[in-house]
């Protein structure tokens, strides 16, 4: 366990702790700024339609958080996977200075820590947003919505990792983020029956049936399963051919 923590610390130092913290803060601030400006821009419309309530506001901020998360996780995985290529570590790993499993486990753990930190800051941003907009809300309901987002949005960073595993080139994988954004923009034209089975779209699908606990649970399980499958693929993957 202590060796894991040690490798984790080294991983944090390797990328640059200041850089990572800055990345989380900027991502949360962008989400907050975009959500606030959108709500202020559409305030009259939201008021007239009776949408100035917790669920709509959270779904708006989750919509922006999804896009920010796509770019955030793209940068994050670029640092975690592609930097090793830049430093030539993947080939050194074949001489087994440490096991590949251990290294990748620390990378996943570090990513999870970053993801949790992003979510904490995003939750704080949403909380401030609700207070600024003067909306009455139940704290447990608010936390429940944020927790659902936390579970289903895991598909976005893991899709980004899948791009790295598929194209094996840091810059190309990063630019594929646009495919995630594209999917969200054309979601309306995808038939619902197909959209339900695309794990990437779970983070958007979940707001349609937010009251239906059974479906929400299914979406959460589907997202976590998707993450676990990609995690297993990433452990098995051969990084030697990474460009």
């Amino acid at each position, binding site marked *: 366990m202590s060796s894991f923590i040690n490798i984790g610390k080294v991983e944090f130092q390797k990328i640059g702790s200041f850089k990572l913290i800055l990345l989380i803060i900027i991502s949360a601030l962008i989400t907050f700024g*975009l959500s606030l400006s*959108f709500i202020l821009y559409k305030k009259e419309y939201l008021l007239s339609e009776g949408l100035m309530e917790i669920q709509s506001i959270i779904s708006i901020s989750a919509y922006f958080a999804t*896009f920010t998360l796509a*770019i955030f996780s*793209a*940068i994050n995985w*670029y640092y975690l996977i592609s930097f090793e290529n*830049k430093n030539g570590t993947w080939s050194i790993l074949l001489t087994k200075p440490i096991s590949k499993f251990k290294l990748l486990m620390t990378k996943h753990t570090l990513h999870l820590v970053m993801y949790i930190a992003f979510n904490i800051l995003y939750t704080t941003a949403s909380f401030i947003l609700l207070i600024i907009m003067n909306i009455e809300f139940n704290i447990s309901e608010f936390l429940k919505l944020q927790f659902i987002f936390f579970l289903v949005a895991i598909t976005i960073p893991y899709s980004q990792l899948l791009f790295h595993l598929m*194209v094996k*080139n*840091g*810059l*190309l994988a*990063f*630019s*594929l*983020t*646009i*495919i995630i*954004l*594209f999917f969200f*923009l*054309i979601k309306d*034209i995808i038939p619902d029956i197909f959209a339900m089975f695309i794990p990437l779209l779970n983070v958007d699908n979940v707001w349609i049936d937010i009251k239906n606990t059974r479906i929400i649970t299914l979406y959460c399980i589907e997202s976590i399963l998707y993450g676990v499958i990609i995690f297993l693929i990433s452990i098995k993957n051969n990084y030697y051919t990474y*460009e």
Partner: protein
Amino acid sequence: MSFIEEFKKIKGSGAYILLAVLLLLPICIQGVLGLGPIVTDYKYYVTTFGLFCRLFLSVAIGLLISLSFYNEYRRKGYLNVILNGHSFANLIINKMLFFYTFILVYLLTALFISLGFQLFDGSNIGLYYKELLISFSFLFITSILLINIHMFLCMFFNQHTMISLIISVLCSFLNVFIVPTQLWIMFPWSYPTRILYFASLNTLDFVTILLITICSFALILYYNSINVRST
């Protein structure tokens, strides 16, 4: 014609396949969706190009430029330039010419695919070819502006070419929200989309776009000359 050699530097990295995907995906999807009598003629051209200009074009430019500069660092291209007694200015100008040529071919391919859809839809191109020409020429000019911006970013941040790509992805995302607002003129990444609706622009907007493009040229050439002196 040594700028053609730049083409070979990226060959084999899979970038051209990805660039082709970034071109075909939006144009074909929008082309299929727009088929039918609802949108015809120039509006159909705008439909096929809309998503491509809004989201994909800046990423394609960012990817091409970042990868080209990244490869120079990764494959010790700059060291080779010094060892073989070439000048950096030539390298950058070659790159510049390559990017312009590539983007022209890229946009022409997009135009031909779009024209294919338009012909299939039964649009009479003879009626609106002038609009097509104006729109396409300005699309090319705005793409040159984006190329210059991203080249400057790559030159400024040296080996951190990733920053240029991050900015291109972030800006294409912000583009979706900025294009409909009055602030578009301050955001060069929104120009390709706005130029599709050129009838709604006034002369001042065109002059501003042209001036900014000329300034970007000057900036690149000036920065290039400073870089040469310092090395």
